[in-house]
Protein backbone atom coordinates (compact mmCIF):
# COMPACT_ATOMS: atom_id res chain seq x y z
CA UNK A 1 0.00 0.00 0.00
CA UNK A 2 2.85 2.41 0.87
CA UNK A 3 4.46 1.49 -2.44
CA UNK A 4 1.20 2.22 -4.25
CA UNK A 5 1.01 5.66 -2.63
CA UNK A 6 4.55 6.51 -3.72
CA UNK A 7 4.02 5.26 -7.27
CA UNK A 8 0.76 7.13 -7.52
CA UNK A 9 2.30 10.40 -6.33
CA UNK A 10 5.22 10.00 -8.78
CA UNK A 11 2.87 9.23 -11.64
CA UNK A 12 0.56 12.14 -10.83
CA UNK A 13 3.52 14.54 -10.88
CA UNK A 14 4.82 13.07 -14.13
CA UNK A 15 1.55 13.03 -16.06
CA UNK A 16 -0.36 15.82 -14.36
CA UNK A 17 -3.49 13.65 -14.42
CA UNK A 18 -6.71 15.03 -13.00
CA UNK A 19 -8.40 11.80 -12.11
CA UNK A 20 -7.54 8.56 -10.34
CA UNK A 21 -9.68 5.43 -10.64
CA UNK A 22 -9.00 2.65 -8.18
CA UNK A 23 -10.68 -0.58 -9.22
CA UNK A 24 -11.11 -2.86 -6.21
CA UNK A 25 -13.18 -5.56 -7.93
CA UNK A 26 -10.55 -8.09 -6.96
CA UNK A 27 -10.52 -7.12 -3.30
CA UNK A 28 -12.56 -9.59 -1.31
CA UNK A 29 -11.44 -8.83 2.23
CA UNK A 30 -10.75 -5.42 3.75
CA UNK A 31 -9.67 -4.23 7.15
CA UNK A 32 -9.51 -0.80 8.74
CA UNK A 33 -5.95 -0.32 7.46
CA UNK A 34 -6.96 -0.68 3.81
CA UNK A 35 -10.00 1.51 4.41
CA UNK A 36 -7.78 4.26 5.82
CA UNK A 37 -5.25 3.85 3.03
CA UNK A 38 -7.95 4.41 0.42
CA UNK A 39 -8.87 7.68 2.14
CA UNK A 40 -5.19 8.63 2.33
CA UNK A 41 -4.78 8.02 -1.40
CA UNK A 42 -7.77 10.30 -1.96
CA UNK A 43 -6.12 13.04 0.12
CA UNK A 44 -2.76 12.64 -1.66
CA UNK A 45 -4.43 12.84 -5.06
CA UNK A 46 -6.32 15.95 -4.06
CA UNK A 47 -2.98 17.66 -3.32
CA UNK A 48 -2.20 17.10 -7.00
CA UNK A 49 -5.65 18.44 -7.93
CA UNK A 50 -6.82 15.02 -8.99
CA UNK A 51 -10.12 13.42 -8.00
CA UNK A 52 -10.20 9.82 -6.81
CA UNK A 53 -13.00 7.42 -7.69
CA UNK A 54 -13.11 3.97 -6.16
CA UNK A 55 -14.98 1.56 -8.40
CA UNK A 56 -16.14 -2.04 -8.37
CA UNK A 57 -16.54 -2.45 -4.64
CA UNK A 58 -18.13 -5.76 -3.69
CA UNK A 59 -21.22 -5.74 -1.45
CA UNK A 60 -19.41 -7.73 1.25
CA UNK A 61 -16.56 -5.21 1.24
CA UNK A 62 -19.00 -2.31 1.49
CA UNK A 63 -20.73 -3.96 4.46
CA UNK A 64 -17.40 -4.56 6.21
CA UNK A 65 -16.28 -0.97 5.71
CA UNK A 66 -19.61 0.28 7.05
CA UNK A 67 -19.39 -1.98 10.08
CA UNK A 68 -15.90 -0.61 10.70
CA UNK A 69 -17.38 2.86 10.59
CA UNK A 70 -15.38 3.94 7.56
CA UNK A 71 -17.32 5.92 4.98
CA UNK A 72 -14.28 6.84 2.84
CA UNK A 73 -14.63 10.59 3.15
CA UNK A 74 -12.88 12.52 0.43
CA UNK A 75 -13.18 9.89 -2.28
CA UNK A 76 -15.99 9.30 -4.74
CA UNK A 77 -17.38 5.84 -5.38
CA UNK A 78 -18.98 4.30 -8.45
CA UNK A 79 -20.40 0.93 -9.34
CA UNK A 80 -18.01 0.21 -12.20
CA UNK A 81 -15.12 1.74 -14.13
CA UNK A 82 -17.47 3.11 -16.78
CA UNK A 83 -19.48 5.08 -14.25
CA UNK A 84 -16.26 6.14 -12.54
CA UNK A 85 -15.03 7.63 -15.81
CA UNK A 86 -18.36 9.39 -16.25
CA UNK A 87 -17.89 11.04 -12.86
CA UNK A 88 -14.36 12.14 -13.76
CA UNK A 89 -15.50 13.46 -17.13
CA UNK A 90 -18.01 15.65 -15.36
CA UNK A 91 -21.01 13.82 -16.77
CA UNK A 92 -22.19 12.96 -13.33
CA UNK A 93 -25.16 14.47 -11.60
CA UNK A 94 -24.52 18.10 -10.74
CA UNK A 95 -25.17 17.56 -7.03
CA UNK A 96 -23.21 14.30 -6.65
Amino acid sequence: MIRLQEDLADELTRTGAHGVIIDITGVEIVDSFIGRMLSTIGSISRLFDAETVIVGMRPAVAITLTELGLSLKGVRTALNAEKGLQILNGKSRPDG
Partner: protein
Amino acid sequence: MDVGTPGTRMADYLRDHRDKVIGRWTELVVAGVRGRVTADEVQRELGDLFSLVVRMLSGADEHAAGELHAGLDELSRGRARNGFTPRETALGVFSLKEAVYELVADTAELVPEFLAFSRLIDDLGLHTFEAYSAAREQIIADQSNAMLELSTPVVRLWDGIIAVPLVGTLDSARTQLVMEKLLDTLVATGADHAVIDITGVPTVDTEVAQHLLKTVAAARLLGAECTISGIRPQVAQTIVSLGIEFGDIATKSSLADALALALKHAGLKVVPALWSRCPSSRSGPRCSSPSRSTCRTTP
Protein backbone atom coordinates in the same frame (compact mmCIF):
# COMPACT_ATOMS: atom_id res chain seq x y z
CA MET B 1 -30.32 -49.58 31.26
CA ASP B 2 -29.95 -51.96 34.18
CA VAL B 3 -33.47 -52.90 35.24
CA GLY B 4 -32.67 -56.27 36.86
CA THR B 5 -35.23 -58.68 38.24
CA PRO B 6 -37.77 -56.12 39.52
CA GLY B 7 -38.03 -54.81 35.98
CA THR B 8 -38.63 -58.27 34.60
CA ARG B 9 -41.31 -58.95 37.15
CA MET B 10 -42.95 -55.62 36.41
CA ALA B 11 -42.80 -56.43 32.71
CA ASP B 12 -44.56 -59.74 33.31
CA TYR B 13 -47.18 -58.03 35.43
CA LEU B 14 -47.82 -55.35 32.78
CA ARG B 15 -47.99 -57.96 30.02
CA ASP B 16 -50.65 -59.87 31.99
CA HIS B 17 -52.75 -56.74 32.51
CA ARG B 18 -52.07 -55.16 29.11
CA ASP B 19 -55.64 -54.42 28.05
CA LYS B 20 -56.66 -53.08 31.45
CA VAL B 21 -53.66 -50.72 31.72
CA ILE B 22 -53.94 -49.43 28.16
CA GLY B 23 -57.66 -48.91 28.62
CA ARG B 24 -57.22 -46.82 31.75
CA TRP B 25 -54.20 -45.00 30.30
CA THR B 26 -56.18 -44.06 27.18
CA GLU B 27 -59.06 -42.84 29.35
CA LEU B 28 -56.76 -40.55 31.36
CA VAL B 29 -55.01 -39.16 28.27
CA VAL B 30 -58.24 -38.54 26.36
CA ALA B 31 -59.65 -36.69 29.37
CA GLY B 32 -56.48 -34.56 29.45
CA VAL B 33 -56.45 -33.51 25.78
CA ARG B 34 -60.10 -32.33 25.77
CA GLY B 35 -61.32 -34.18 22.71
CA ARG B 36 -58.77 -32.96 20.22
CA VAL B 37 -57.66 -36.53 19.49
CA THR B 38 -60.03 -39.49 19.17
CA ALA B 39 -59.85 -42.31 21.69
CA ASP B 40 -59.00 -44.84 18.94
CA GLU B 41 -56.06 -42.79 17.82
CA VAL B 42 -54.76 -42.40 21.36
CA GLN B 43 -55.24 -46.11 22.03
CA ARG B 44 -53.19 -47.02 18.97
CA GLU B 45 -50.36 -44.64 19.91
CA LEU B 46 -50.32 -45.73 23.51
CA GLY B 47 -50.52 -49.43 22.56
CA ASP B 48 -47.27 -49.07 20.60
CA LEU B 49 -45.61 -47.17 23.45
CA PHE B 50 -46.82 -49.70 25.98
CA SER B 51 -45.28 -52.60 24.07
CA LEU B 52 -41.99 -50.72 23.92
CA VAL B 53 -42.07 -49.94 27.65
CA VAL B 54 -42.69 -53.64 28.42
CA ARG B 55 -39.87 -54.70 26.09
CA MET B 56 -37.53 -52.23 27.75
CA LEU B 57 -38.50 -53.35 31.27
CA SER B 58 -37.97 -57.01 30.46
CA GLY B 59 -34.38 -56.12 29.55
CA ALA B 60 -34.23 -58.78 26.84
CA ASP B 61 -34.03 -56.33 23.97
CA GLU B 62 -31.26 -53.68 23.84
CA HIS B 63 -32.92 -51.79 20.97
CA ALA B 64 -36.12 -51.23 22.94
CA ALA B 65 -34.80 -48.12 24.76
CA GLY B 66 -33.80 -46.43 21.51
CA GLU B 67 -37.09 -47.30 19.84
CA LEU B 68 -39.05 -46.06 22.83
CA HIS B 69 -37.22 -42.74 22.79
CA ALA B 70 -37.75 -42.40 19.06
CA GLY B 71 -41.44 -43.19 19.49
CA LEU B 72 -41.77 -40.57 22.25
CA ASP B 73 -39.91 -38.01 20.11
CA GLU B 74 -42.33 -38.62 17.28
CA LEU B 75 -45.35 -38.30 19.56
CA SER B 76 -44.07 -35.11 21.23
CA ARG B 77 -43.23 -33.48 17.92
CA GLY B 78 -46.72 -34.23 16.66
CA ARG B 79 -48.23 -32.77 19.83
CA ALA B 80 -46.05 -29.63 19.57
CA ARG B 81 -47.05 -29.08 15.91
CA ASN B 82 -50.74 -29.48 16.69
CA GLY B 83 -50.62 -26.84 19.39
CA PHE B 84 -50.93 -28.98 22.53
CA THR B 85 -49.67 -27.47 25.76
CA PRO B 86 -46.55 -28.91 27.44
CA ARG B 87 -48.77 -30.16 30.27
CA GLU B 88 -51.01 -32.12 27.91
CA THR B 89 -47.99 -33.63 26.19
CA ALA B 90 -46.20 -34.69 29.36
CA LEU B 91 -49.46 -36.02 30.80
CA GLY B 92 -49.48 -38.57 27.99
CA VAL B 93 -46.54 -40.31 29.65
CA PHE B 94 -47.22 -39.60 33.30
CA SER B 95 -50.76 -41.03 33.15
CA LEU B 96 -49.24 -44.48 32.59
CA LYS B 97 -47.86 -44.26 36.11
CA GLU B 98 -51.28 -43.42 37.45
CA ALA B 99 -52.96 -46.15 35.45
CA VAL B 100 -50.51 -48.75 36.77
CA TYR B 101 -50.64 -47.40 40.33
CA GLU B 102 -54.40 -47.86 40.46
CA LEU B 103 -53.85 -51.52 39.58
CA VAL B 104 -50.96 -52.32 41.92
CA ALA B 105 -52.20 -50.22 44.86
CA ASP B 106 -53.60 -53.30 46.58
CA THR B 107 -50.66 -55.57 45.80
CA ALA B 108 -48.12 -54.92 48.53
CA GLU B 109 -45.36 -57.18 47.13
CA LEU B 110 -44.97 -55.07 43.96
CA VAL B 111 -43.85 -51.88 45.76
CA PRO B 112 -40.11 -52.00 44.84
CA GLU B 113 -41.01 -52.86 41.26
CA PHE B 114 -43.45 -49.99 41.09
CA LEU B 115 -40.85 -47.55 42.44
CA ALA B 116 -38.35 -48.58 39.76
CA PHE B 117 -41.09 -48.35 37.15
CA SER B 118 -42.07 -44.92 38.43
CA ARG B 119 -38.50 -43.69 38.08
CA LEU B 120 -38.42 -44.94 34.52
CA ILE B 121 -41.65 -43.12 33.68
CA ASP B 122 -40.30 -39.88 35.18
CA ASP B 123 -37.26 -40.21 32.97
CA LEU B 124 -39.44 -40.79 29.92
CA GLY B 125 -41.57 -37.79 30.89
CA LEU B 126 -38.53 -35.54 30.93
CA HIS B 127 -37.47 -36.94 27.59
CA THR B 128 -40.91 -36.14 26.18
CA PHE B 129 -40.68 -32.60 27.40
CA GLU B 130 -37.24 -32.12 25.87
CA ALA B 131 -38.48 -33.38 22.52
CA TYR B 132 -41.54 -31.16 22.81
CA SER B 133 -39.56 -27.98 23.45
CA ALA B 134 -37.03 -28.85 20.74
CA ALA B 135 -39.89 -29.19 18.27
CA ARG B 136 -41.38 -25.87 19.38
CA GLU B 137 -38.04 -24.10 19.02
CA GLN B 138 -37.70 -25.57 15.54
CA ILE B 139 -41.15 -24.24 14.62
CA ILE B 140 -40.24 -20.75 15.87
CA ALA B 141 -36.92 -20.78 13.99
CA ASP B 142 -38.66 -21.89 10.77
CA GLN B 143 -41.27 -19.18 11.12
CA SER B 144 -38.80 -16.38 11.70
CA ASN B 145 -36.76 -17.57 8.72
CA ALA B 146 -39.85 -17.56 6.54
CA MET B 147 -40.72 -14.09 7.78
CA LEU B 148 -37.24 -12.77 7.00
CA GLU B 149 -37.47 -14.06 3.45
CA LEU B 150 -40.95 -12.69 2.94
CA SER B 151 -40.33 -9.26 4.28
CA THR B 152 -37.33 -8.04 2.30
CA PRO B 153 -38.14 -7.56 -1.36
CA VAL B 154 -36.07 -5.24 -3.50
CA VAL B 155 -38.05 -3.86 -6.44
CA ARG B 156 -37.00 -1.99 -9.53
CA LEU B 157 -38.87 1.30 -9.92
CA TRP B 158 -37.19 2.55 -13.06
CA ASP B 159 -34.04 2.09 -15.04
CA GLY B 160 -31.33 2.68 -12.47
CA ILE B 161 -33.75 3.27 -9.59
CA ILE B 162 -34.57 0.54 -7.09
CA ALA B 163 -36.74 0.56 -3.97
CA VAL B 164 -36.75 -1.42 -0.73
CA PRO B 165 -40.15 -1.33 0.98
CA LEU B 166 -39.46 -2.23 4.61
CA VAL B 167 -42.28 -3.75 6.65
CA GLY B 168 -41.96 -4.56 10.34
CA THR B 169 -39.36 -3.85 12.97
CA LEU B 170 -35.75 -3.49 11.88
CA ASP B 171 -33.33 -5.49 14.01
CA SER B 172 -29.66 -6.23 13.34
CA ALA B 173 -30.31 -9.53 11.61
CA ARG B 174 -32.88 -8.01 9.27
CA THR B 175 -30.76 -4.96 8.55
CA GLN B 176 -27.94 -7.26 7.56
CA LEU B 177 -30.25 -9.15 5.19
CA VAL B 178 -31.77 -5.97 3.73
CA MET B 179 -28.31 -4.48 3.26
CA GLU B 180 -26.99 -7.57 1.51
CA LYS B 181 -30.01 -7.78 -0.77
CA LEU B 182 -29.93 -4.08 -1.58
CA LEU B 183 -26.21 -4.10 -2.38
CA ASP B 184 -26.49 -7.27 -4.47
CA THR B 185 -29.35 -5.75 -6.43
CA LEU B 186 -27.40 -2.51 -6.93
CA VAL B 187 -24.52 -4.51 -8.39
CA ALA B 188 -26.78 -6.78 -10.46
CA THR B 189 -28.89 -3.99 -11.97
CA GLY B 190 -26.23 -1.28 -12.08
CA ALA B 191 -28.70 1.08 -10.42
CA ASP B 192 -27.34 4.32 -8.99
CA HIS B 193 -30.32 5.34 -6.93
CA ALA B 194 -32.06 3.46 -4.14
CA VAL B 195 -35.20 4.42 -2.24
CA ILE B 196 -35.66 2.93 1.22
CA ASP B 197 -39.36 3.12 2.06
CA ILE B 198 -40.11 2.87 5.80
CA THR B 199 -43.89 3.29 5.62
CA GLY B 200 -44.27 -0.18 7.15
CA VAL B 201 -41.79 0.35 9.97
CA PRO B 202 -43.90 0.95 13.09
CA THR B 203 -41.37 2.85 15.16
CA VAL B 204 -38.01 4.44 14.49
CA ASP B 205 -35.74 4.59 17.50
CA THR B 206 -32.01 5.29 17.66
CA GLU B 207 -31.19 1.66 16.89
CA VAL B 208 -33.38 1.50 13.79
CA ALA B 209 -32.01 4.85 12.63
CA GLN B 210 -28.48 3.57 13.13
CA HIS B 211 -29.32 0.58 10.95
CA LEU B 212 -30.79 2.79 8.25
CA LEU B 213 -27.71 5.03 8.26
CA LYS B 214 -25.45 2.00 7.94
CA THR B 215 -27.42 0.73 4.96
CA VAL B 216 -27.20 4.11 3.26
CA ALA B 217 -23.47 4.37 3.97
CA ALA B 218 -22.88 0.93 2.44
CA ALA B 219 -24.93 1.81 -0.66
CA ARG B 220 -22.93 5.03 -1.03
CA LEU B 221 -19.71 3.05 -1.05
CA LEU B 222 -21.04 1.33 -4.17
CA GLY B 223 -21.64 4.73 -5.70
CA ALA B 224 -25.40 4.76 -5.25
CA GLU B 225 -27.41 7.58 -3.73
CA CYS B 226 -30.13 6.70 -1.22
CA THR B 227 -33.38 8.40 -0.31
CA ILE B 228 -35.44 7.47 2.74
CA SER B 229 -39.16 7.77 2.13
CA GLY B 230 -42.42 7.03 3.90
CA ILE B 231 -41.72 9.00 7.06
CA ARG B 232 -45.02 9.39 8.87
CA PRO B 233 -45.79 12.41 11.09
CA GLN B 234 -45.42 10.46 14.35
CA VAL B 235 -42.15 8.95 13.15
CA ALA B 236 -40.87 12.40 12.19
CA GLN B 237 -41.71 13.65 15.69
CA THR B 238 -39.91 10.72 17.32
CA ILE B 239 -36.85 11.21 15.13
CA VAL B 240 -36.63 14.87 16.03
CA SER B 241 -37.24 14.38 19.75
CA LEU B 242 -34.60 11.64 19.89
CA GLY B 243 -32.17 14.00 18.18
CA ILE B 244 -31.44 11.59 15.34
CA GLU B 245 -29.55 13.25 12.50
CA PHE B 246 -29.92 11.85 9.01
CA GLY B 247 -27.20 14.19 7.82
CA ASP B 248 -27.16 14.78 4.08
CA ILE B 249 -29.43 11.84 3.33
CA ALA B 250 -32.52 13.01 1.48
CA THR B 251 -35.78 12.15 3.22
CA LYS B 252 -39.25 12.33 1.68
CA SER B 253 -42.71 11.79 3.06
CA SER B 254 -43.90 9.50 0.30
CA LEU B 255 -42.46 7.02 -2.14
CA ALA B 256 -43.82 9.15 -4.99
CA ASP B 257 -41.77 12.15 -3.85
CA ALA B 258 -38.68 9.98 -3.53
CA LEU B 259 -39.21 8.62 -7.06
CA ALA B 260 -39.60 12.16 -8.39
CA LEU B 261 -36.31 13.13 -6.74
CA ALA B 262 -34.54 10.07 -8.11
CA LEU B 263 -35.87 10.78 -11.61
CA LYS B 264 -34.65 14.36 -11.31
CA HIS B 265 -31.18 13.15 -10.33
CA ALA B 266 -31.18 10.77 -13.26
CA GLY B 267 -32.02 13.67 -15.53
CA LEU B 268 -35.54 12.43 -16.27
CA LYS B 269 -38.79 14.31 -16.09
CA VAL B 270 -42.41 13.17 -16.08
CA VAL B 271 -44.64 15.29 -18.29
CA PRO B 272 -48.30 15.02 -19.41
CA ALA B 273 -48.84 12.66 -22.33
CA LEU B 274 -49.15 15.38 -24.95
CA TRP B 275 -46.61 14.67 -27.62
CA SER B 276 -46.52 18.29 -28.72
CA ARG B 277 -45.21 19.24 -25.29
CA CYS B 278 -42.38 16.76 -25.40
CA PRO B 279 -39.26 18.80 -26.11
CA SER B 280 -37.17 15.96 -27.50
CA SER B 281 -39.87 14.79 -29.94
CA ARG B 282 -40.24 18.25 -31.37
CA SER B 283 -36.58 18.78 -31.91
CA GLY B 284 -34.54 15.90 -33.26
CA PRO B 285 -34.87 12.14 -32.74
CA ARG B 286 -38.06 10.38 -31.68
CA CYS B 287 -38.77 10.20 -27.96
CA SER B 288 -37.55 6.80 -26.72
CA SER B 289 -38.90 6.88 -23.18
CA PRO B 290 -40.04 3.62 -21.58
CA SER B 291 -43.57 4.83 -21.00
CA ARG B 292 -45.91 6.96 -23.06
CA SER B 293 -46.41 9.49 -20.32
CA THR B 294 -42.75 10.18 -19.74
CA CYS B 295 -39.92 11.25 -21.87
CA ARG B 296 -36.19 11.69 -21.63
CA THR B 297 -35.30 15.32 -21.66
CA THR B 298 -31.88 16.58 -22.49
CA PRO B 299 -30.21 17.62 -19.25
